[in-house]
Structures are given as structure tokens and as C-alpha cells.
């Protein structure tokens, strides 16, 4: 009896060290990994969906307060952050293009730029948070800004802090993922045929970006 190991190793494409034992071809493995990532992104969307639901319900209950409070946020800083995130998404997409063309250095540079953008986003966000703490625009029972009297303002900041906080957490996770991808790029692990990690790292980053693109108008603009 011949073991499955032996026959499997003889199959084409088996010699590749990146290929796990239970896959037959690189394409099959990449397809599986991609599908897995998309499903994971689906769970992320539903995670945020709960907060968007909360936003909708409380905006309905406290229309005035939500309107008033969104004016209290810093529109310039929010806009700047939006521009930074969109730019970073561009960088990470370009990094994937670069790695596909085997331009290792360019890809590494673009990934560094992406991570720097993420860092800038967090720094700006922390300035915004600091200001909120100063003026007492805080969630729930901590709310203490006497200038906003409309009832429900505390809930606006509950939603604000929960949503932006969860998003900031995702930014940090995204930075770590990209740093890990960067490490691989610097080691020369990826190339034109083998770049699914770069692609998926970028995909995750796009999701982080996308969530912000929904949060920004909901919290700052309307």
C-alpha cells in the first residue's frame, strides 16, 4: 500500500514550501485563504453593524442632541483623518501592485508609508479624544459638558466613543498586520506568484478604511 504522502509529494506543485500538506495546488490554497479573509471581513462588518444600529436607534430618539453634538466635533481634524486614511489605502494597494511586479523595495517603502499614515491617524484621533476629556463630552454617566443641554447628548458620545474606539482598535490591529507583512517583504518572502499575504493585509486595511468612511459622515457631517 502506498501512503498518501508519497503520492501527494509526486503531484505537480508539491515541492513548494509555502504549500500546506492538505492543498494540491498554490491556486487552491490562495483561493481558500482569500475566501477565509472575505468571510472574516464579513464578520467585522457585522460587528460594527451593531453599533451602527445603536446609532440609528438613538439618532431617532434624540435627533436634536445628535445634530448638536456632531457640530461639537472638530470637522477639520475629522476631514484630515479621512484624507490620511484614504491615502493610506492607496499606498497599500500600490504596495500590492509593486510586489506583483517584484519591486520589493518599492513595496516595502509603500507599506512603511501606510503604517506612518495609520500612526498619524491615531495621533490626530488622540488629540480629538484629549479635547473631549477636557470639555467633558464623555459617554453615559460621565458626560458633563454644560454647553450641550439636549438630553441624549451623553448617548451620542457613548456611540461616538464606542464606534471610534473600536475603529481605533482595528487601526492598531491593521498596523500590526501590515508590520508583519512588511517584515515578510523585507525578508524577501513574497514575489509575483506568491503575494496573497500582501493582498490580504491590504484587504484588511481597506476594511478599516471603509468603516471610517461610514463613521465620518455619520458622526461629523450629519
Amino acid at each position, binding site marked *: 500500500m502506498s501512503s498518501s504522502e508519497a503520492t501527494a509529494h509526486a503531484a505537480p506543485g508539491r515541492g513548494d514550501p509555502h504549500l500546506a500538506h492538505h492543498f494540491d495546488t498554490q491556486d487552491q490554497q490562495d483561493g481558500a485563504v482569500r475566501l477565509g479573509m472575505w468571510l472574516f471581513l464579513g464578520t467585522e462588518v457585522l460587528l460594527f453593524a451593531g453599533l451602527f444600529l445603536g446609532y440609528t436607534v438613538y439618532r431617532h*430618539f*434624540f*435627533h*436634536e442632541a445628535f445634530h448638536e453634538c456632531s457640530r461639537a466635533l472638530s470637522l477639520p481634524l475629522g476631514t484630515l483623518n479621512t484624507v490620511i486614511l484614504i491615502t493610506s489605502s492607496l499606498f497599500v494597494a500600490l504596495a500590492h501592485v509593486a510586489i506583483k511586479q517584484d519591486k520589493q523595495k518599492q513595496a516595502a517603502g509603500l507599506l512603511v508609508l501606510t503604517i506612518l499614515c495609520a500612526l498619524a491617524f491615531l495621533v490626530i484621533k488622540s488629540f480629538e479624544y484629549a479635547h473631549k476629556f477636557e470639555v467633558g463630552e464623555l459617554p453615559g454617566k460621565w458626560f458633563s459638558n454644560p454647553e450641550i*443641554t*439636549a*438630553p*441624549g447628548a451623553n448617548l451620542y458620545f457613548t456611540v461616538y466613543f464606542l464606534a471610534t474606539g473600536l475603529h481605533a482598535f482595528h487601526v492598531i490591529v491593521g498596523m500590526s498586520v501590515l508590520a508583519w507583512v512588511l517584515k515578510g517583504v523585507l525578508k524577501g518572502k513574497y514575489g509575483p506568484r506568491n503575494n496573497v499575504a500582501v493582498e490580504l493585509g491590504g484587504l484588511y486595511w481597506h476594511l478599516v478604511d471603509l468603516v471610517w468612511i461610514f463613521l465620518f459622515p455619520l458622526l461629523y457631517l450629519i
Partner: protein
Amino acid sequence: MNEIMRRLLWLPDEASTFAGAVDKLHFFVVTVTMLASVATGLLAFGFFFKYRERRPNQSTPIIVPSVKFELAVIGVPLAFFLAWFFQGYRDYIWYTTPPANATDIYVMGKKWMWKFSYGGDGPNAIGTLHVPANRPVRLLMTSRDVIHSFYVPDFRIKQDVLPGRYTETWFEATKPGRYQVLCAEYCGTWHSQMWGEIVVMPGPEFDQWLLDQRAGQNAARVDSGGDDGASFHGSLVEYGKRIAMAQGCLKCHSVTGEPHIGPTWLDLYQRRETLETGEQIVADEAYLTDSMIDPRGKIVKGFKPVMPTYKGRLAAPEAAALVEFIKSLRSTSLENVPSKEAVYEPVNRAR
């Protein structure tokens, strides 16, 4: 037949108008359920013997369902289920639509007791609710702490009682007697002891009871506790008046009929108002409580949308007291000595 089924299924008395309707559907649904499940079980059991394996590696026919069969297995259950839904929903709509002449009673749940307040001038009661037989009674319910659920098995009614919100239910008791009230939504240590009692009295007897209660001193009543028993004694109307002053309602709403920043409260209850949108509404309990929670939703024509929302500021019992206070502000009763009977007359709502 009904009575046999009722006893067989351990159902309690049918002591309200709703109970009869529910039980009829109940008997039908449960009978079909039992027949279908026993038939399925027996059929499978029978097949075990009829089609048992006769020799090893026995071959079996390939049986495929025809389209007709598929349509039947989808259609027949669906027809049953939708019929139940239809009848159930009809009954439910009837159950959620209190008749216009229902007497209002406020119910407040708190860990672990029920408090009842009669509209107008009291009395208030803890644990025991007196109601007339053969007259519709509407309960306007709220909770002081967590979610409770007002459940009267003999009436087949149940309604969750929520903090910060109002829910309503109604019933028309058919038999004088005593019926247990249970809390059905888990609410902590003594959830299982959060019981109350509904005493159903024949109509005239109830009227007399109410008069007796109202005539006595606060202390001599069934219970003298207000919604916040420790700090307030007296009727819901007085309580509402105190809230109105404390919350600053009276800065904008007059009680004398004079126009002010907001509409006057005098005769507001049941008044027909034209809204900004041109829509006509009647200022009933729903409109009044809505306007406290979402004041800019329905602005009466000629007034500016300046009132802040009181959601989160008014505890639900306070909102109830305010509504009762507004209801008590009738020009007739201000001009004349208030007629005691008039307060208890069934409220004439334009439903």
C-alpha cells in the same frame, strides 16, 4: 367539549373575554400538533417493522418525490400555519386595541411588587387590584427598575413592563373572583414571589368600593403609598402637579387656559389639535407621553418647536402622573366644585 379540553390541558379558568377566543385556537392548534407528531412517530415506528432488513446487503428502490408531492408537503403545512397565524393575529389585534370606554389604571412594577394607581383621585394599592366585572379595564404600565411582565393566567394576558417606557394592556373580566397576577419576566432574587391579585367585583359593588376608598383619609385607604411611597403620599394627580412644578413644565404651559410658550394644559386632554403638518390629532395619553419624550415630533400649529425632550429626565411613573394631572385639568371641574363621581366615569376616548 371546551371544558374537557381545558381541564385536560390544565388551563386555568377562562375569566376574561379574551380567554375564550385564545382557548379555541389553542385547542385546535394543540390537537393538530399532537396528531401530527404522534402520526409521524408511529409511522416511522411502523416502517421499522414493515420494512426491516430481510437479508444483508439488500437493495432498495430509488424513490423520488414528484412535483405534486413536493407542493403538497410545502402547501399543506403552510396552509395550516398561515391559518393559525391569521386567526392568532386577528385575536391579537383585538387584544391590543382597548375599547374606547375602558377605565384606566396605572400599574408600576418594581422589585418585587406591583403597585396600582387609579386615575383621578386614587386610591393607590400595592399587590391588590380591584376591578369591575364586565367592564373593560386598561392598564398603563411601567417599571421603576428592571423589566417585569404582568401576567394573569386566568385572563390569558401578559405584557412586559419596561423602565423608561409605557406599555398597555387591557382586559374585560367576566367572572367576579380573585385571580393571581404573576411576574413572568425574570427580575432577580424574588422574581418567583412577585405576585399580586386581581379582585374582580360586580360593577355596582366596585363603584361603591371606589367611593368608599376615595372618601376615606389617605391613611385609611387600601394603601397610601404613591409611586414613590417613601417621599410622597397622595393621589397621582397631586404627584403629577408636583412634578410639573419641579420639572419646569409650568414655565411654558399654563393650567388656566391662557396661551403661553406652549399650549395650555387646561382641557388639553381629548382636545382636537391641528398640527404644523395640517394633520388632525386628538391629545390622548399616547400623544401626551409622546410629546414629553419626542416633543418636536408633532408640533401643534402656531407653536414653535422649542420644548426639549424629557426622555431620560422623567421617570416613567412621573410621566404617568403628569398625564393624570393634565387629564384632571378640565375647565368644568375648575369652575365648579369637582363632582366626585365624574372623575371615575369611564373615560370617553375617541377611538
